[in-house]
């Protein structure tokens, strides 16, 4: 006679539950559908924003393809395997940043690139956008939660080294994103509220010190221009004035695809990169931007679900941080283009033109998918 235990074990809805095709290749359906939707929408907006430039579209589509390959590849790696390699990758990343600092290739007035002609050319800071939260997640997942002060301080040290190196490049936008991605891990790990509040209170004098000792003139100028764009209408303020006019003139329903006047008459600088949301706002109106925000919210929602369902602490912390950092991208970009935040050079994820950021973002989603699809089924009973 079969025991009850035997019956449960042999029940096919647990051990023999058929994994779907997507699960077997370690991809997450909802995320994939949302990402493909964004990619399609991006090409649509980009076609208009770039002035019907097919070459640009093909480049963007190619980058998206490369990003998908990176995403699928990363999704195959087990989170445990990642955790094993993260500390080494962190050390390599920091060393590359030091190399850039010492003898980096000069691009666009700032030193951000590692360039081995004919072999590879990339920004180590992009690499750290994923390695940074993974490192902190790896470190904290071995400690008890909520983290002790000593572990918090050590984590902040791990965040601080690459942060300072990237600030020195100088690339304020990226360094703030990396700072955010590291601190979100601490937040997810249950950093005590009273510490959070006291740090926020202490940030004010630190900000004052940064203003006087660390910031470059062009960064100060950006902040001053943000506070009063009118003060520099010929320079940085021009972007904000024009992007606000573009978004505002879109109204509720927009002027229609390819009919935006601001972007098409070249009023709007960088209309296909950091300021692309202005084109979207002008041509598709409030409705268009809200639709985009809904897609972003669904992506973030899915990311938070993955966070909650992750089985390992490393997975939870990493997934939570990557999701929240993704939101920071969205918020900072739209906030800056609509004149709420300073111009810090953060692209709009998946919509702005630019291969590097696409590949990085898709890699991050590859990590999320890996965390979600490598769960042990037994634990879900």
């Amino acid at each position: 006679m079969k025991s009850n235990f035997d019956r449960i074990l042999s029940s096919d809805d647990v051990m023999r539950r058929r994994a779907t095709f997507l699960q077997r290749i370690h991809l997450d359906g909802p995320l994939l559908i949302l990402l493909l939707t964004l990619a399609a929408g991006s090409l649509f907006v980009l076609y208009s924003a770039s002035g019907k430039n097919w070459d640009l579209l093909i480049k963007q589509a190619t980058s998206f393809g490369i990003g998908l390959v990176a995403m699928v590849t990363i999704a195959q790696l087990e989170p445990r395997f990642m955790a094993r390699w993260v500390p080494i990758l962190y050390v390599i990343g920091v060393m590359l940043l030091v190399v850039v600092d010492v003898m980096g290739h000069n691009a666009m007035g700032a030193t951000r690139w590692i360039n081995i002609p004919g072999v590879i050319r990339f920004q180590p800071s992009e690499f750290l956008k994923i390695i940074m939260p993974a490192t902190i997640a790896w470190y904290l997942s071995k400690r008890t939660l909520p983290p002790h002060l000593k572990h918090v301080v050590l984590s902040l040290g791990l965040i601080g080294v690459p942060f300072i190196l990237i600030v020195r490049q100088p690339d304020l936008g990226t360094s703030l994103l990396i700072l955010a991605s590291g601190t979100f891990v601490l937040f997810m790990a249950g950093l005590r509220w009273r510490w959070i509040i006291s740090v926020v209170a202490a940030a004010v004098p630190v900000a004052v010190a940064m203003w006087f000792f660390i910031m470059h003139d062009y960064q100060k100028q950006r902040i001053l221009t943000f506070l009063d764009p009118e003060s520099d209408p010929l320079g940085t303020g021009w972007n904000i004035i024009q992007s606000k006019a573009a978004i505002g003139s879109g109204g509720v329903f927009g002027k229609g695809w390819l009919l935006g006047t601001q972007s098409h008459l070249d009023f709007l600088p960088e209309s296909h990169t950091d300021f692309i949301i202005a084109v979207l706002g002008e041509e598709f109106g409030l409705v268009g931007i809200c639709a985009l925000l809904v897609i972003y919210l669904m992506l973030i929602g899915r990311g938070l679900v993955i966070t909650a369902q992750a089985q390992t602490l490393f997975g939870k912390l990493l997934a939570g941080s990557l999701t929240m950092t993704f939101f920071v991208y969205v918020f900072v970009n739209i906030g800056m283009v609509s004149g709420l935040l300073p111009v810090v050079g953060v692209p709009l994820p998946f919509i702005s033109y630019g291969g590097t950021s696409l590949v990085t973002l898709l890699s991050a989603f590859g990590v999320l998918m890996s965390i979600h699809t490598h769960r042990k089924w037994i634990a879900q009973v």
Partner: protein
Amino acid sequence: MSQPIRLKDHEKDARLVRSRVVVGAVAVVVLVCVLVARLYFLQVIQYDYHSTLSENNRVHVQPIPPSRGLIYDRNGVVIADNRPSFSLSMTRERSGDWATVLDTIVQILELTPDDRIIFEKRMKQGRRPFEPVPILFELSEEQIARIAVNQFRLPGVEVVAQLVRHYPQGPHFAHSVGYVGRIAEKELKSLDSVNYSGTHHIGKTGIERFYEDDLHGQVGYEEVETNARGRVLRVLKRTDPVPGKDIVLSLDIKLQEAAEAALDGRRGAIVAMDPTTGEVLAMVSAPSFDPNLFVTGISFKAYAELRDSIDRPLFNRVLRGLYPPGSTIKPAVAIAGLDSGVINASTRVFDPGYYMLPNYDHKYRNWNRTGDGYVDLDTAIMRSNDTYFYDLAHKLGIDRLSSYLNKFGVGQKVSLDMFEESPGLMPSRDWKRITRRQAWFPGETLILGIGQGYMQATPLQLAQATTLVANKGVWNRPHLAKTINGSPPVDSNPMPDIVLRDPSSWDKVNHGMQQVMHGARGTARKAAIGAQYRIAGKSGTAQVVAIKQGEKYDRSKVQERHRDHALFVGFAPADNPKIAVAVMVENGESGSGVAAPVVRQVMDAWLLGPDGLLKPQYASSANPEAAAREE
């Protein structure tokens, strides 16, 4: 009992993270609401405002270029001013097919295809969207009328009044003041794009370039409302530009003209300085050119003519002409000898007409083949005796010689505010090892002693070295700007004064230089005949073609362009120096015969009053009669 094992409480961790996920989700939703609220504000509440702004492209921000600072000579005569001028400008975005519009302009104004190429180049340099690009300057009345009549065929084309740089003195100051020209693509990258947003010209050479930041000023801007065709209807807001600073030069236009006249059409360079201040009083590089040609864009043909002319009018001989200083360097070498103690004023050397190094059979010749017999320092300078200075250079050695001459400014940039200056060359052991990978030979030291060999100096450096002898080693970098907006230029990198162990050495060399002019056997005594004041001077010859050992320089055999350059340096009044002059006459051959009279004329023009007598303020403070008595 085993010790209690501290287990990680996975369930507790998961609860903790889950609660943070909830907090994060709430934050995300709140912040998205903030964004939506902001967009609602822009797109719904302010919709009317923004759609007016954008849909008709009515409001533009237009930069207002500051007016460029003026440049005056020391007496207040204008050297560079700004003249209103009508130019034709075109806004690419309003012209539709702008290439066709260009064709129409060329046809209406009956211009050449060359002009069209220039227009096209200028159009491609347009920077900000909707910014009008000036393509043709200095329109005549007739051209303006033709444009007006055909306006309907020329969308986006306008006649605009602008201030354009003008040099009323023409070629007189082309090499010192320089000129402005249109901003080139390359320059655009290194410029402050905001401050230059309304500016089309930038200093290219000379004072115009060196003091570009001061002369330019700060851009202003205005927000204007335009109609759909781009015409300004009204100004909404205006911030005035800050005009550039005015510069008063130390140059004197009368002295400049006198110096040019003294050259009498020959090619050459003249620098006249006030030795007490370092102010440059006249700076001539002849032939010159008209800087106005460059302001509004010179035609290919006119430029090719200037560039390819055998007389090289574009070449700044004062600042970039490199010549072996020849015997003009002897006073500085004499100072080096006296101060280092290898000679004193009464040291005598026997001159048989040549000098030979011990153990070498090469004869280093004196210019006077018969020799001057026993010579002391005074005679050596007066007669420009080469043998004496071969011997002196040999005693000094290359290291001491080059270190002393460096103090006189040879081999380095000496000026304070001259952009193109060449450093020249003062050779040394290290220099030769690095550049030629060879050891230093003693013979090379000898010819340095008479200013030949590797040594190269600009006429400005010669003037400065002479000035240093005149004012006993006090360094003031030569400068052209007397004041910028009323304040004198500041030397951020001053040279140390030359301090001698025995300051009377200066007087000994000074005396020798006076003998050149006033001594019975002085080499340039003819140039000083009838002078109202004592002159200290030194002639020199810069070889153009090397003469082989044993060969004789024969002027009839040497082509005119291969003849030696004549050099002369001097200062006056000798006991109270008020002007120091260096002159180089290209292919002039004789320093004392050709260049010295030029120096004399420049000094006369500066020092003598209209009555032909020394101006009272330049009279020697010590004993005014002494100068007259020694006439």
